[in-house]
């Protein structure tokens, strides 16, 4: 099966997020009031081939842990969507 994977990488709780803080500070000057808790992360998208969803999840989880995130400062959230049952 082929899955579309979206990995959202965000800073772990307690790790300073200077980008989020800077954006939040700029908002009142632009007239946006009442916006709080801005954080900045990144999203990484790709497709993955695996036998089933649990195999795909295991593969992407390993990929996140070893490469896509630095576990010292970052967490990740994985979303998978099946897009085809077999490669073309």
């Amino acid at each position, binding site marked *: 099966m082929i899955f579309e994977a979206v990995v959202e990488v965000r*800073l772990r709780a307690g*790790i*300073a997020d*200077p*980008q989020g803080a*800077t954006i939040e500070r700029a908002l009142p000057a632009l007239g946006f009031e009442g916006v709080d808790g801005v954080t900045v992360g990144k999203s990484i998208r790709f497709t993955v081939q695996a036998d089933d969803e649990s195999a795909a999840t295991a593969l992407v989880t390993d990929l996140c842990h070893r*490469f*896509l995130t*630095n576990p*010292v*400062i970052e967490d990740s959230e994985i979303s998978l969507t099946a897009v085809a049952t077999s490669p073309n």
Partner: protein
Amino acid sequence: MSTNIAVIRFPGTNCEFDVLEVVQQLGAQAHIVFHDEPGLGNADAVVIAGGFAHGDYLRPGAIARFSPVMTAVSEFAASGGPVVGICNGFQVLTEAHLLPGALQKNAGLKFRCGPTDLRVESSDSVLTRAVATGDVLSIPINHFEGNYTCSAETLAELQSEDRVLFRYVNNPNGSVDDIAGICNQGRNVVGLMPHPERACHELLGSTDGVGLMQSLLDSASRS
């Protein structure tokens, strides 16, 4: 035979020739090792020079860590060989798990570039044996992601094992505990954000880096 230093160059490294120049100025030999080489040549010590390895894509050091040469660097480090990562080299060493913690974006999102006073906190390492604890050195920094961070447990370990080698006198980037440089438990792997190779000639405004580079050469000749 004179001491020989391997200077690692990834695509995007830009400080390798400054290191080469200083090593030669101090009377030793140095050669560049490209990232896709499987070995280090005949090296007595390794320097991972600064720059933007692999464009710093994903995270600084994240892709460099998987370059073929890093296997040789890890083995060299495991055998007790002196390894120093400067700036981007420090980031590579943390990503490669040769040093703990991580370097994140500077507090305030400021790119910091200029001379910085560093206090030597331990003279027990391959990069500090020729300087004294308490010395204050003027060494330039040049980084956007030099804000050292680590877990509370790691910090306690670094402190209790005397592995914080340098602290900023005036913290420029938000690093925890003012940390500018650390070493591993074996004290043969050192990472620091400031650039000692840029402070080795009067024309550059400081010669305070000479003691550090000399320490590395002394360590290399003993290894």
